[in-house]
């Protein structure tokens, strides 16, 4: 079946724009309906992709057209195991956010929907782009709608909001712009080395291995972009202010999706095209990731603002994902992909619940003002408990499988770091349980008025929780579909760290897609589910 990815990518923005034009200021219902339709189209498309995707095949549903001849930039989109489930995750979370936002009234509604639609389009674009320049363009563009969304509909004083969101944009674009230079350098150096025309397509870039010196600085620029976006310790300076001032529905997708694009970037671009540098900086990246895990966990345990608890817990979770990526092993990378999906599915409902909690204790988002909410809200408590258990990766959850695979991969490559990383698993249960207990149990807070969730809230929350449960029951689905692509992605680096026994027969070694499975590796598909 041919599925044109351009429809998937552009539908949300196109529908939202159409809605804004047709609806205008007088007919908000039209705007809302079309915006919702755009998101649902993307969701339907993403589901169709997952169903139709043939496991083991390479890049599928490829659209490849020359976009800017002068610069060798292609408009190339494609889906493989690396981005398939992230596309689905993005669509699911944006649908949830859209449903959530539909239940509220706000000023300048048509503009809100246009920005949300654009955000959806740009995130999908970054995920399916198969051309480096296109990826960089979407990666930078992603941020702009969030800038406007926070500016126009954010929380807090205007001045404060402007400052927070400017900080967010500058911080993240600092990384992205360094990446822009690195991307151009990568393509220009590749083309001068191979003698072919300038091309930014991933397939062309990964065929050339640059000299180690060039690889190293290019790697550092890419790493800066992705680590800031995640965010990772010590590049998270924008996170507290940014999280405090974003509107909650928007924050849910922001936290759930944008950080994953960064993690995905490592697997898609950095490791296949810069394998030597990835090996060279492996320890550094692992240490940064480890620091993120520990720092994020400790901070999540000590702050009292619910948004920040979730923000810091994301830093810790993203640390795990980076650990998986830079274990430079099949299992680790597979765990990273799975964990990206898991974390997105957990953090979005968590922010939604945070909004519900705030509504039940006089608008305060501080844990000290909460407590005892479980009293008259059994459904909310149950849902929250499921989300919390998934977040702390209780055995039986898909998060457990993800973390298990990550740690397994790490054990095989760096034992010491793996041992320290285990404390992160324990710390996750500490901060998650603290959040749950202090909000739902304990002494009843001063302004707390406990009530259960309405049907409208349930429409948003229940499907997300069902997704968590479904993935817990059947985590093999994403693992199986991702397996071949993940192996191909880490193969160049694997060939350097553990040269295959036949290396003598194949000099040069680093041929993408040709590296064999390392001996003794556990089959990841059967690896984790208890």
């Amino acid at each position: 079946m041919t599925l044109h990815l351009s429809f998937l990518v552009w539908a949300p923005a196109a529908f939202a724009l159409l809605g804004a034009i047709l609806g205008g200021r007088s007919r908000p219902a039209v705007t809302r309906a079309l915006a919702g339709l755009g998101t649902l189209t993307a969701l339907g498309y993403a589901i169709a992709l997952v169903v139709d995707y043939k496991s083991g095949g390479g890049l599928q549903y490829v659209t490849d057209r020359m976009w800017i001849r002068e610069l060798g930039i292609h408009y190339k989109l494609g889906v493989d195991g690396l981005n398939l489930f992230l596309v689905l995750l993005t669509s699911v979370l944006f649908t949830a956010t859209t449903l959530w936002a539909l239940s509220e009234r706000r000023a300048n509604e048509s503009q809100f929907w246009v920005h949300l639609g654009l955000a959806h389009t740009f995130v999908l674009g970054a995920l399916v782009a198969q051309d480096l320049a296109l990826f960089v363009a979407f990666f930078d563009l992603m941020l702009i709608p969030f800038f406007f969304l926070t500016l126009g509909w954010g929380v807090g004083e205007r001045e404060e909001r402007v400052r927070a969101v400017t900080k967010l944009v500058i911080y993240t674009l600092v990384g992205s712009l360094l990446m822009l230079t690195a991307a151009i350098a990568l393509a220009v150096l590749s083309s001068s080395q191979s003698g072919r025309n300038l091309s930014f397509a991933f397939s062309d870039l990964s065929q050339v291995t640059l000299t180690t010196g060039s690889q190293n600085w290019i790697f550092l620029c890419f790493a800066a972009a992705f680590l800031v976006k995640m965010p990772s310790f010590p590049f998270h300076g924008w996170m507290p202010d940014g999280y405090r001032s974003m509107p909650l529905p928007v924050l849910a997708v922001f936290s759930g999706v944008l950080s994953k694009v960064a993690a995905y970037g490592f697997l898609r671009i950095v490791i296949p095209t810069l394998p030597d540098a990835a090996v060279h900086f492996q320890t550094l990246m692992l240490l940064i990731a480890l620091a993120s895990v520990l720092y994020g966990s400790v901070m999540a345990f000590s702050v009292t603002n619910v948004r920040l608890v979730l923000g810091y817990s994301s830093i810790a979770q993203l640390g795990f994902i980076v650990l998986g990526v830079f274990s430079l092993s099949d299992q680790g990378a597979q765990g990273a992909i799975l964990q990206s999906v898991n974390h997105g599915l957990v953090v979005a409902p968590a922010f939604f619940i945070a909004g519900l909690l705030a509504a039940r204790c006089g608008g305060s988002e501080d844990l000290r003002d909460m407590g005892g909410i479980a009293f008259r809200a059994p459904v909310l408590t149950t849902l929250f408990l499921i989300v919390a258990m998934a977040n702390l990766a209780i055995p039986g959850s898909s998060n457990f499988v993800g973390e298990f695979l990550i740690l397994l991969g790490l054990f095989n490559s760096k034992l010491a770091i793996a041992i320290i990383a285990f404390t992160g698993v324990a710390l996750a249960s500490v901060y998650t349980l603290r959040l749950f207990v202090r909000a739902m149990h304990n002494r009843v807070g001063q302004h707390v008025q406990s009530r259960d969730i309405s049907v409208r809230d349930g429409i948003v929350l229940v499907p997300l929780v069902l997704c968590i449960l479904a993935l817990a029951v059947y985590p093999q689905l994403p693992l199986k579909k991702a397996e071949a692509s993940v192996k191909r992605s880490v193969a160049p680096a694997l060939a350097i760290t553990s040269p295959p026994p036949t290396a003598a027969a194949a000099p040069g070694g680093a041929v993408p897609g040709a590296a064999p499975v390392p001996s003794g590796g556990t089959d990841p598909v059967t690896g984790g589910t208890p």
Partner: protein
Amino acid sequence: MIATALNLAASGAVKGPKIDWAGLSPLVALLGGVVVVLLAGLLRPRFAREQVVPGLTIVTLLTSLGLTIWQLDEQKNLVAGALRLDGLSTTLTVIFLVAGIAATLLSWRAMAPRESAHGEYFSLVLSSISGMVVLVWAQNTVSLFLGLELLSIPLYVLCATEMRRATSLEAGLKYLVIGSVGSATLLYGLALIYGATGTTDYTATAQAFSAKALSGDTLALAGIALVLVGMCFKCSVAPFHQWTPDVYEGAPTPVTAFMAVATKAAAFGVFLRFFDVALIDAQSTWGPALAVLATITIIVGNVGALGQSSLKRMLAYSSVAQAGYMLAGVVVSTQLGVRATVFYLGAYLVMNLAAFGVIIARERETGLGDDISAVSGIGATRPLLAWPLTVAMLALAGVPATAGFIGKFQLIRATVDGNYTWLGIVIVIGSMISLGYYLKVVAAIWAGAPSTEALATGPALPALAGGAPDAPTTAPPAKPAWELTFVAVVFGAATIVFGIIPQPLFDFVERAGSAFTNLV
């Protein structure tokens, strides 16, 4: 003696150079327009002065534009090799003419031509453009200097055309003094280079440099350094940029817009022409120096813009920074570098005109001048002005899907390709700093409190001595002017279009690069 000369001339023994009128036609049209517009300004009826004169100006510019497009792919020497029509000449001439048309629209109902008389104002604009044309077509240092002065002197006057505003007069005077210093430095440098090479012709200069191995010659190097400084004054490259914020702020805003885009393009045109043709042999000497200047310019411009609350001052510092980016294309001395610079000049034209259209519109409507509060909150009330300004700011910052992004992309590619990768990194560091002030404007547009629109008229101005007798004594009343919105929307849209479909613009500037046959 005279009689013999006359006899010789009459008998045809002294031949003037053969003039290729077709090639020269864009320039001739401009110069003819200068006369016609000046004369039309003498007509009595108010309608003739206020509507016919700008109309004739636009007709002149369009005629010249048509003739340039007719000659677009010609490559020939004109007037005995004093001027040359080639890809660089024609592409840059198109940029000047488009900037001129926009500037005429922006000035149409503005304060400045009313106070200084319409005929004079618009004929000065036209003569400045002819100066630019001569400057970038020039093939020897004499016509270079001629063009430079023909470009500069009208601008000195134009800056001071809002005669009752002290800052406008101050801007004119300041520009005159500093511009003259720049010109003098440049002239001195040209004289020294002439002394070293014995020729004024660019190509002959280049030959003399390689034949006499002048790249290490003290006289020639001193000449190059002085020429560099003189041109840096014109391009507002740091540390020779100090005049820029004051002049940009003081000059009437339509004139500022014109200076920002057209003068910059002319200055970079001659920069490319002179350094990449005449002085190409000494590239290893001036290349690194220019790279350092570019770095300083990028940092100084962007840091300087951070604290500004006047939009014109902010754009002045931003133009300094952008000059630094474009200098990177000159530094590398490749055809790719030339193409990147000219592309960026085109992108810069559309981005800046979109911004200036909005600034002028708000200036007239609110009486708040060019302060950032004039655009505060227009996102809710004036979407047709809010969007172009937003797009322009994001484009200047280099956000994807705008012409500014593609321009930076090509410039960075040129630096990497020319082994100046570190300069590419400086460019992106500059862009990062620039976000600090561009986003401030965007935030003001969309989240600012709307300014009180009641402030229709500015403070009363002093009576005018020696100006047009019927000049009004207060600023014109607040009326939404369609031509300003038109300029803002058209160039705002162009910013997006060239950001998404840049290939036509790339094809257009391709011929500018191919004009430099001596470069790789």
